[in-house]
């Protein structure tokens, strides 16, 4: 009996080893092709449909290249940080990472290779790329990658709700300076309705029973929301030398107070409660048709503008009180980890993905505007087929108003400061503290402390 038991158990152990070896990856035979693994998951790209499209793209590359083989490594978005860091620690860093938003470039800033030497070695021509797009990837310490795509931002608006309120649609004229934050507030208040149909300008308006909201900017954090107000450091809460915190600049305070009043005084912005269940339902602020205007980026087209039960269009973001227009931008690129092997091959793949022939297909998968000027026409055709009936000019023109320093750009202790600022934002959205001056002074003190600790550690 004992002997039988022992035999059985040994067989189980053997079986497990064999079976898992079968399920394991193919042995690393010395092939001619160098492997380039593309880590996808920091940003978009993990939706099952996108996975299929990326695999097709890989086949296209592999069938036309003898010396390099690419493979898209799909990492579920929630776990990109742990997996990336594990791969780095384990010595098997991926060759390329992307699509990388500015935020994830910042998050893992120290791990990226500087591609300046690669560009200079072959005098790679960057002139076809949008100048600002190239600039967004350039930091004092390094150039993080060739630009892939841009996601300018603008207002998505629900035409049916405007019709119901008897309002004119927001202007599409970029030179109309009367389209400012006050006008936005006005319109939004008229678009905010309680269950009796009264809007927020009505003295009998019931703020506890709001069924329709005028304006929403809930899908961005503190830096993104306040970058449009014209502060000297735009979307960056520190000075250019990264030593002084400026989260309490007058413009940021003005912007945050505008939001705070929008939520708690004028009621045209939804509080945290309104946002609460949306994420869990997989629902965006715009789709249900209960929001008049939603400030978001080009990446929202892919998700938000499908199967709408109402007519929608897009309009430029308004002018701020300083008479300037800042429409924040998101930008994606691919980056190369410093510790990866086959970096030269990674560079080749990076060039291929952002080449004029391929960039439109890549951007179609990820929903971005290609960062190359020469392919705009081709991409516009795609846009017209995918999203008929909107004003495409708004998309392209908004690029010129991007925020630089960008609201997601790297600063020291990027993650910690991001969490601190978003916690402060939640104070306003939950009504815990509605005085913007207080919220931002406290935030500024915290940020300064973090910066001081950082610089104290530097040699």
């Amino acid at each position, binding site marked *: 009996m004992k002997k039988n038991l022992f035999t059985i158990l040994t067989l189980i152990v053997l079986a497990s080893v064999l079976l898992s070896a079968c399920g394991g990856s193919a042995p690393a035979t010395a092939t001619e092709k160098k492997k380039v693994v593309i880590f996808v998951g920091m940003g978009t790209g993990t939706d099952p449909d996108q996975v299929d499209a990326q695999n097709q793209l890989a086949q296209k590359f592999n069938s036309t290249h003898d010396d390099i083989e690419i493979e898209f490594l799909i990492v579920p978005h929630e776990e990109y940080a742990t997996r990336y860091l594990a791969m780095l620690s384990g010595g098997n860093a991926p060759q390329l990472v992307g699509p990388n938003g500015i935020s994830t470039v910042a998050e893992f800033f120290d791990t990226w290779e500087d591609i300046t030497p690669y560009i200079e070695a072959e005098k790679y021509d960057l002139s076809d790329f949008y100048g600002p797009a190239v600039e967004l990837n350039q930091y004092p310490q390094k150039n993080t990658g060739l630009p892939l795509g841009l996601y300018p931002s603008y207002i998505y608006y629900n035409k049916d709700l405007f019709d119901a309120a*008897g309002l004119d649609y927001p202007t599409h004229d970029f030179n109309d300076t009367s389209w400012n934050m006050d006008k936005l507030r006005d319109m939004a208040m008229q678009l905010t309705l309680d269950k009796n149909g009264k809007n927020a300008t009505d003295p009998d308006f019931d703020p506890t029973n709001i069924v329709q909201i005028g304006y929403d900017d809930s899908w961005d954090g503190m830096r993104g929301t306040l970058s449009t107000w014209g502060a000297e450091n735009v979307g960056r809460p520190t000075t250019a030398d990264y030593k002084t915190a400026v989260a309490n600049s007058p413009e940021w305070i003005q912007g945050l107070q505008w939001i705070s009043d929008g939520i708690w005084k004028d009621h045209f912005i939804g509080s945290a409660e309104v946002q609460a269940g949306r994420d869990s339902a997989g629902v965006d602020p715009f789709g249900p048709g209960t929001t008049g205007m939603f400030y978001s980026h080009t990446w929202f087209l892919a998700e938000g503008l499908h199967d709408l039960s109402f007519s929608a269009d897009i309009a430029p973001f308004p002018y701020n009180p300083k008479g300037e227009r800042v429409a924040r931008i998101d930008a994606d690129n691919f980056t190369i980890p410093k510790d990866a092997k086959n970096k030269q091959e990674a560079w080749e793949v990076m060039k291929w993905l952002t080449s004029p022939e391929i960039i439109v297909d890549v951007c179609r998968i990820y929903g971005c505007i290609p960062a190359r000027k020469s392919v705009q026409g081709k991409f516009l055709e795609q846009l017209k087929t995918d999203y008929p009936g909107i004003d495409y000019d708004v998309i392209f023109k908004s690029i010129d108003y991007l925020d630089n320093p960008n609201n997601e750009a790297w600063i020291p202790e990027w993650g910690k400061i991001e969490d601190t600022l978003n916690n402060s934002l939640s104070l306003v959205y939950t009504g815990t503290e509605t005085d913007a001056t207080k919220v931002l002074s406290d935030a500024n003190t915290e940020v300064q402390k973090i910066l001081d600790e950082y610089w104290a550690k530097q040699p």
Partner: protein
Amino acid sequence: MAETIKTSTRSQSTRRSFSGIRTQSLLLKGITTLLLAAGAAVIMIPFLYLLSTSVKDRDQLRQSPPPLIPMAGTTVEINGQNEPLYQVTVNGKQTKMALIKNRPGGMGLFVDPENPDQTNELVIADQTPLKHLEIHWENYPQALQKMNFNRLLLNTLLITFIGMAGMLFSCSLVAYGFSRFRAPGLNVLFILLLSTIMLPSQVRLLPTYVFFAKLGWVDTLLPLIVPQFFANAYDVFLLRQFFMTIPLELDDAAKIDGASPLQTLLYVIIPQSRPALVSVAIFHFLFAWNDFYEPLIYLHSPEHWTLAVGLQTFNALYAVNTNYIMAASVILILPPILLYFLAQRIFTQGVVFTGIKG
């Protein structure tokens, strides 16, 4: 003599209070069932929403508050657009019309689908939007196909069952060692065993990954299976607790019969511990079935993923496909529930100690 007296008094007392005991027991059963039913109703409500969400499409997900029964707004196509259909009252008559445009002041333009050129301006709030039942059963096959269910199922089953075998084997041995023996330092080692789960796993993650990477086990199922053969704190602790409820007299009896400690384990302890062993097996199954934390780190290629990892792909950056997540979750529930239901037989057998003379 004394014994027979005892028996007769016993039977007398039972006869006297027989009816009392019966009503008491019926009452007890009644209350019990009532309480359980109330609790079960509360427990099932979220589960019903799980089911209901799993058969909705994107549009239906947008409804708020989310209806338990998957309804969708009825629409009709007018001039190439889908417009919502309402039950309207016009000139005292009830008819069906579509809302094609909103107008200020809560008014709306309604048209009869048969006669789309004639518009009626009516108060929207006075009309009733029409809804119909719409169940998207196709979410299930779609979710399965999108997550490559068959392959992931195979991986998950491999990890689960082989791990279970290893765990039962090793944990029984180790728990036995900790519960039936005296040895110097054993108590300290037991605390050490427990302490391995007191350290948050986040800080061990990277060093453990590096270790497996050096072994070449990354992107294989090995890191998830092999450690199971070396026992784990939870199951050892649990089995030890159960083993310690078994009277030592049984061990002694076996020893007198000449059994070695191993034989005592196999023929005395293990048979007595069936409920505990089944519990431990079920727990392990559940854990391995739903665990995504470690598989996420070690399994790179999608063909090696487990079901729990596959579920994560629906949780993408901009598009949380809640309906697919729920559909896949419902399917994932079935095997553990089946297992649990089958294991009930072991639970219902009480452990009766007979033949132990004081």
